């Protein structure tokens, strides 16, 4: 069997998790103006200062233009043709899983991430978000005993306004970039997490996102604060139903790490990638950034990106505190007509700061996969160290793999090392597997999984299993 055939078979599978669930929505009219911003704010019963904050962001957004530097191509987005708010009609606060809308429950069941199972088997607290409003938060009691706050963003606005006021926009200012400004103006909901001084969060905190209503933009806002010597591991996973219409997703995640604290943020992203011909799919334009504000703090990003028709995402770390550590581990898979431009920024400001970047790009079909990263050593960052490794794997001869690292070194005591390779799955490797009785499809899966191992090892156990499954699904459709 020819190599080309194997690759074609492996890379032409349909999206497994595509379906639509019927939940009634409470939508805002299409389009965006100050009135809509006020509508969203009023709908959420927000205090005046937050409305002002949104309006400021909106007015700045009006002066900005869409970024054109990413290596991705798509039709012009009509920002007036998007619904900026939709909430499931569910107004009662629930105390147990039984009260959750059976339709939603079924949806999660189809995805294989049922709340019940999560709760019973893994001890993971889940803040499930469908479209834009939190439906259910579990384990809150257990966490509250430790002083941990884990709730929806809108709840936090009402219950912990001092924290929101202090930290919102402190890592990603409203003026940061086009999509961050847009998000600041119209964000609907998201998650909030605060780990108090000296507390080690005993369980993985997790949020599942889904896009549901047709034509809905999804504008999540996540804020995580680790106070002195705190530790938290946070999981984010997404999957979305099949749509013909492109959907915009522009989330913002901010992480603030105080002295001696550690935050580990893991993502498995599986938004609808569009069909075999590149029709439909999510535009995933996300701003994720953390700041190691205090000495000896650490922020670690791990992401497995298999979905979305376009991904534009650079989880970054500002290493401000002395001896602080930033990490970025990424697997990005593009198939069919997907485009990804993803990577990280490591901004070294403090002394003895250290960053590690491991990026694995896999492209198949007609897809384009780019790594874009910045390592900046500022003049005062004595003894900073960075190590980056960016590997690309090509499955087939119709796709592209690109590497665009920027290395800016302004201090002589720095050590910055960057390595990148591009290669393919070897015929000899596949043959070797065949000879040992392994099918082509399994062989490709095996080899690709091995190639990504370094990143998967960074994921929490249950997430790693899911990531491997996703990778297999993304490369599925094999051969006999």
């Amino acid at each position, binding site marked *: 069997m020819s190599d080309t055939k194997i690759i074609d078979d492996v890379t032409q599978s349909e999206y497994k998790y595509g379906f639509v669930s019927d939940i009634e929505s409470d939508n805002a009219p299409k389009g965006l103006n100050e009135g809509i911003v006020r509508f969203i704010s009023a709908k959420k019963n927000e205090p005046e200062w937050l409305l002002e904050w949104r309006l400021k962001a909106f007015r700045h957004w009006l002066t900005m233009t869409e970024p054109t530097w990413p290596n991705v191509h798509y039709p012009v987005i009509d920002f007036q043709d998007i619904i900026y708010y939709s909430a499931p009609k569910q107004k009662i606060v629930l105390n147990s899983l039984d009260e959750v809308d059976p339709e939603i429950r079924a949806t999660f069941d189809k995805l294989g991430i049922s709340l019940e199972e999560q709760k019973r088997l893994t001890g993971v607290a889940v803040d499930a978000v469908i479209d834009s409003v939190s439906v259910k938060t579990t384990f809150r009691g257990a966490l509250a005993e430790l002083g941990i706050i884990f709730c929806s963003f809108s709840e936090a606005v009402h219950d912990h306004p001092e924290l929101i006021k202090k930290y919102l926009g402190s890592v990603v200012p409203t003026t940061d970039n086009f999509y961050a400004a847009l998000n600041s103006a119209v964000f609907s909901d998201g998650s909030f997490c605060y780990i108090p001084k000296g507390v080690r969060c005993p369980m993985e905190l997790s949020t599942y996102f889904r896009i549901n209503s047709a034509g809905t933009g999804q504008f999540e806002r996540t804020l995580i604060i680790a106070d002195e010597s705190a530790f938290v591991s946070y999981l984010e996973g997404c999957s979305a139903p099949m749509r013909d219409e492109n959907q915009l997703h522009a989330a913002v995640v901010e992480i603030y790490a105080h002295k001696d604290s550690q935050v580990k943020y893991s993502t498995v992203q599986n938004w609808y990638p569009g069909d075999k011909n590149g029709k439909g799919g999510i535009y995933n334009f996300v701003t994720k950034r953390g700041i190691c504000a205090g000495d000896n703090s650490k922020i670690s990003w791990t992401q497995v990106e298999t979905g979305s028709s376009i991904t534009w995402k650079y989880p970054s770390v500002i290493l401000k505190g002395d001896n602080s550590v930033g990490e970025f581990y990424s697997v990005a898979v593009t198939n069919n007509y997907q485009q990804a431009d993803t990577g990280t920024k490591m901004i070294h400001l403090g002394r003895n700061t250290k960053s590690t970047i491991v990026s694995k790009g896999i492209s198949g079909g007609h897809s384009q996969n780019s790594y874009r990263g910045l390592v900046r050593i500022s003049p005062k960052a004595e003894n900073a160290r960075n190590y980056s490794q960016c590997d690309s794997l*090509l499955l087939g001869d119709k796709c592209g793999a690109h590497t665009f690292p920027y290395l800016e*070194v302004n201090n*002589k005591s720095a050590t910055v090392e960057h390595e990148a*390779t591009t290669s*393919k799955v070897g015929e000899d490797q596949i043959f070797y597997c065949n000879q040992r009785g392994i099918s082509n499809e399994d062989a490709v899966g095996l080899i690709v999984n091995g190639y990504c191992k370094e990143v998967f090892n960074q994921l929490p156990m249950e997430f790693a299993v899911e990531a491997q499954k996703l990778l297999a699904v993304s490369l599925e459709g094999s051969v006999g």
Partner: protein
Amino acid sequence: MNTTIGTMPEYLTRYFENNNLIGPASLKQIRKDALARFEVLGIPTTKHEEWKYTNLAPLTRSEFHPALYHTLSKDVVVNDLIAGKEVILLVFENGRLNKELSSFDNLPKGITVGELGDNFDHPAVVKNLAKHASFENEAMVALNTAHIFDGAFIHVAENVHCEKPIHLLYISGGEENTLAFPRNLMVAEKNSSAKVIESFHSRGNESSFINIVTEVVLEENANVEWSKIQLENSNTFHISHTECTQAANSNFDIHTITFGGKIVRNNLHIVLDGKNITSNLNGLYVSNGDSLVDNHTLVDHAMPNCLSNELYKGVLDGKSKGVFNGKIFVRKDAQKTNAYQSNKNILMSDEASMNAKPQLEIFADDVKCSHGATTGQLDKEALFYLRSRGIGEEAARAFLTIAFADDVLNRISNETLRDELKNRINERLNKSN
């Protein structure tokens, strides 16, 4: 695409009309088109991705003009014969060929070396001039192309091997703010070979602006070694573009050695347009003071089974800034490509800085491509080892730095040139210690 309009200082196009009086009609048209394009593009600003770290604003702040006087004497040039005296020599004074100081008579059959302006009707010029270095997106190539006249033409006929090195020697100075637009074309026909040294010098401390474009064409199985050596003073703006097109089975070695000026920009584009081509790109920059050295390389693999190997090293002292932007482009049909790129830098002082952007753009799957970039200090273990053997710290540093640079210089085949460069680097490093 980034199409930010640059700035347009008026003095740059002031000499166009006079310059465009000479040459065949087709060339006049090319110059005109290039001028029109330059007027659209302008001098690039730092908003332009390819000029992100290199600010040409100083060029727009002062005026440069073609030199009025040509007063160079032989004894000045002697010091600049860095590849020895046994060379075919073209001396360009402020961009203009000085025939008295040059020696390119009685060349062996099949070898043509001379002034470009004297050879506009040569078939190889008609066929190749301005056909390789595109000015569509390169403002500084457009500016040069609009002024094509001065420069060197080198032609090596089929099966001819040029034994003597060909030395193109550029000296500027004698007056302030000189401006030159040299344009070189080299064509190495089938199965031919040659070695070319292109070197750039200053007479004194006068400032100058040189905007140079060189096109090198290697036909099948040709073998060319090109050394571009920049030794100008710290008031020089040196903006160069070297475009090489290689046909099947050819071999091109290029050494780009830069000692720094005010701003030095070396663009190097190599198009591997045939099978079984080898390209070796070696670069070394040793800078101090407040100079900025920017090397932009593009290796364009268009056809299968080729090999490119790139090694650029930098030693940055004082307040100098280094930029390395290297792109390996592997097109869809370029299967079985092997492309390697390595960029290593040492920062010697607190105020030196380095911006590196190594890039891979790969559209073929059966390839082996890699790049690596490092910036740091000398290996501490090696320093300790040397010191534990009684070598003092300063000496140990110089030792390791020279070894670091030698890695590039040792790839130059011309022994005289290699030793001369080693001496100059030694001098430079000892001075800064």
